[in-house]
């Protein structure tokens, strides 16, 4: 009986590769709030895994992540590129649960990331890599820290990072496009990514405010 139980504990480990069937993310998934994106990621953001997104700072992080943060108990932004505008965000998430952390150096960033990622009641951590991006060993440590808790851990890196190797089990890239935010899959553990990566477009601001037709613009006096 003891051997069987040992097998069970072995199977319970998330990092055991069991043949072709893609193992479900060890701690389940969290819907992204965008149905096409859920399909692309196989159900939603993985919990307890480092998700890396290559996007120019300020180009669409909120558009991408905010629907998933609505229910989060606590959201921490680590080194955001600019100041979130509270009155605009107040409609989407509870400002009382949004905390901003600003570090001064790469060492402080890694230390902060590890501390925050390890806190179980930090439901969502959004971090922007410091200038000059992170090297592989640092990313590896971030991945380990993200694995410790079954919560959402997003790491935003500059677009050029897509070409550099990274240990993150899920890697995406995104940029602004004519009809909204274009997102495509770079790597997903247990899923063979075809040479032309699958794309999805999140329409710009659903809802009445920006209807399709361009709005009347006041002709400016030359």
């Amino acid at each position, binding site marked *: 009986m003891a051997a069987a139980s040992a097998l069970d504990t072995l199977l319970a480990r998330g990092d055991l590769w069991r043949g072709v069937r893609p193992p479900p993310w060890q701690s389940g998934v969290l819907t992204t709030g965008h149905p096409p994106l859920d399909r692309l990621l196989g159900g939603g953001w993985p919990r307890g895994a480092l998700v890396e997104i290559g996007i120019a700072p300020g180009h669409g992080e909120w558009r991408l992540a905010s629907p998933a943060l609505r229910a989060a108990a606590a959201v921490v932004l680590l080194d955001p590129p600019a100041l979130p505008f509270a009155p605009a965000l107040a409609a989407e998430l509870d400002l009382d649960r949004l905390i901003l952390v600003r570090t001064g150096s790469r060492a402080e960033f890694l230390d902060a990331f590890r501390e925050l990622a390890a806190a179980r009641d930090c439901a969502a951590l959004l971090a922007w890599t410091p200038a000059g991006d992170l090297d592989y060993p640092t990313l590896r440590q971030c991945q380990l820290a993200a694995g410790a808790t079954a919560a959402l851990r997003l790491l935003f890196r500059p677009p050029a990072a897509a070409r550099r190797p990274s240990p993150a089990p899920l890697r995406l890239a995104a940029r602004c496009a004519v009809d909204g935010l274009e997102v495509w899959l770079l790597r997903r553990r247990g899923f063979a990514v075809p040479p032309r990566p699958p794309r999805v477009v999140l329409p710009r601001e659903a809802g009445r*405010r920006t*209807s399709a037709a361009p709005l*009347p613009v006041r002709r400016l006096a030359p």
Partner: protein
Amino acid sequence: MGYAQLYTTTNYSFLVGASHPHEFVERAVALGYGALAVTDDCSLAGVVKAHVAARAAGLPLLVGSALRLAEGPLLLAYAPCRAAYAELSGLITLGRRRAAKGAFRVHLADLRFRLRRCLAVLVAEGEEPPPEVLDALVRAFRGRLWFGLDLRLRAGDEGLLAQWRELGARFEVPLVACPRALMHDPGRRPLADVLCAIRHRRPLAAMGSLLEQNGEAHLQPLAELARRYPPELLAETWEIARRCRFSLDELRYEYPPELVPAGTSPIDHLRRLVEEGKGRRWPGGAPPEVERRIAAELELIEALRYEHYFLTVHDLVAFAKSRGILCQGRGSAANSVVCYCLGITEIGPEQIDQLFERFISRERDEPPDIDVDFEHRRREEVIQYLYRKYGRERAALAAAVITYRRRSAVRDVGMALGLDRQLLASLAASLPWWEGLESLPALLAERGLDPEAPLLARFVALCREILGFPRHLSQHTGGFVIAATRLSDLVPVENAAMPERTVIQWDKEDLEALGLLKVDVLGLGILTALRRALELVSSYEPAIRSLADIPREDAATYEMLCRADAMGVFQVESRAQMAMLPRLQPRCFHDLVIQVAIVRPGPILGQMVHPYLRRRAGREPVEYPSEALRRVLEPTLGVPIFQEQVMRIAMIAAGFTGGEADALRRALTHWGRDSRLAAFRERFVSGLVASGHEPAFAERLFEQVKGFAGYGFPESHAASFALLAYASAWLKRHHPAAFYCALLDSQPLGFYSPDQLLRDARRHGVAVLPVDVSHSAVACSLVAVTGQDGRVRRAIRLGLGQVKGLAEARARAIVAARAAGPFTSVADLARRAGLNRGDLARLAAADALRSLAGDRQRARWASAAAADTPLLADAALPCEPLVAPPPLAIAEVAADYRALGFSLRRHPLALLRDRPPFDRCAPARSLAELPHRALVQVAGWVTARQRPSTARGVLFLTLEDETGCANVVVRPAVERRFRRPLLTGRLLLVKGAVEILREGTAVPVVHVLAGYLEDLSGHLPPLPVPCRDFH
């Protein structure tokens, strides 16, 4: 096809709109608008002012109102026709009467039944109203509803048009351009923000997003509107304007029917009343001339359908007389024999040459304006009678619009800009009453602040801009509006501050502008005093019961007036009047009428006074411009003084009819703005030349008449006042005790304070006994005193009512307790009359316990103990003796003034007379003996400050000392040098030259021309100096 501005908030939406109604009209015309709607918040208070301006500018005006429904949406309602107007006015009345003063509540349910004909615009706002509300509105306003777009470059506006286009399509409701205008000019943006801050009672810095986000809420140029709105929305505004044909001129006044007994027509009832009256006025039958006049007047009244008006006023006067309330009509009504017969006025055709056209004329087609004065203490009874007789739905008081004046402007604007509270209080306090806000920058500099600093420069500009802005509606003192059916069909009615009092939203000017009737129920202090005096006199001389019993043309009375001994006499007691009396020396009633009329700005400006006085004193020959005018100008020795004379000159010499002559007078009254003046000048001059006068003379006469007609006093009005002046003078001459006693009981009244009246009484030998709990009644009373010569003379016993702060109920309790037997001690008084510590302290302070406890200190010592002993302890406990030192004389006088406002002890100046610098000052009485132009020093406390508009900036001071009053003249140059003592000085030393006029006057007229002023207030202990400032 033009553009109509549909959503305009004037400053009659209190503390919201930042421009006057006429400013909106003028700017709308300048911008080329086709029409303008005035839509104040649940109010029509500003529509008449807009109507008057729009009528003059020829701009179509839409009468409307903005109604924020309790359910949320904002609705603009417009009245296309008279019936719709009555509905709108009724709805506003309902909304206002449901809520406290200044607020309103209108529900969706009200609209369905009450606005069947009005057009409505639902203003599109960010949050759409719930579908069921939209449904209800669309069903209620089938075919007369629009969705209004108020696009002002604000957050969320960009999506508004698309959103409401879709709604409009779904509910088949057309869209219309409806930009809101809070101000006529973008420059008023700072004032609009300040008004918003005042409304929220917060400084601007703490207003945050409560302020408008930009300044676009002003009347926009058509080009800008074309850029912001699709053309069809702008065109739709004209559709609404086209369907609104209603004008406020259509409002006609229907009189209450109750006044006429069933079965007779109003005019027959009036004729019967006039017949009865005629019988009373002329028991032996009226002379034929009077009969002719009555017939002519009644015929004109019937033609113009004014009979109801006379019946209303007659009913009022009859009620007052039935209750023994003294009353008298004033104004031009005294030109009418019908009024004399109805008992409304007391001036008969014999006393003045009545000119009916001055009262009513065919050309004017305005209802007559009769003001009726009542005793000011019993006016409330008359007002309650009106409410009882016509009911609250049909009778209400006209509004008085309370506007921003200097002090309120400085305080409110300063607080909005976040200035220091103490600084504002000191600024407001030191603004002299005779200056506008011009001195504000100087006052700021005085306090070490730089008036050019941006914030302070804004502060001064905003204070000047807000002057005259309405703040809230309050009640007019006595202007009553009475309607045949519901008053709210004519004008919205809302709650006044006082409980169960209602007020209409229009003020006196509005009612006159629309030709609507208003009955003025005014209070006149002298009537109260005369009735009280007659009561006192009839107690010891039954022959004198009413005004009619006073013998006419009593020589002794006129002789007293000639000596300028007129303090307390109605209308002729002022400083200027007292200076005129000895020069004019009135000897008969007609002279008195001239005396009342001549000391006015009109005659002074028209240079009428000096020629008349020279001719009266015989130092100038009396000649008349022409033989035809002799009869008109003979009573005034050839010098035109009364308005009626101007009209008669025009009628006789220039061939004007009565109505035209009255139109000329009205044109001359505000000749600055009236455009028809040139036409009148042409007719007047040609008329005179035609009747044989040289053109030069005609031109000069017109100039002379133009100068004074506006201010000239109507003879009828002067005569009504002269009656009361004569009655009060007669009483002062023959029954001084009763006269002064009545004046004291009717305070506040006239020019002089109780202190001055009491000093004048004692100068006339009337003994005055102080207030005392053992002897005084509640009011002042007369006491018979037999002098050594055995003659019974009357003395005045001051009443307990004179004690400041003592409730009348307490005074009555004392008198009632005393009836059971005299008081033995202060404790006995306290126990039997149920007085508390405060009452006893006030009685002691007024020295009214002298008979029980001796001087003021002992009275306080005894009363402090008396109030403390429980009621059960017997009062026999002896009061411990007081061993404090006796009081100083000056302290006693000061205590008198604090507790009573007057003192029977020696005048403070008498107590200071021995001290320098008073010992070197001449007493006021001795000034008359000095040579003309002699240099003199005089000292006294300031009892009056006056700056008459006709005196080219000269300030008149009255200084009083123990011997009498000195009139001091302060020229502007001197005033500037001694600004501080003039502003704050209570006791002044004046050095200057004496000007004495002796010839042509019964008693010398003395003035001191001030050269040097010094403030000696330090010598006086702190006491309230009875000083009156007159504008």
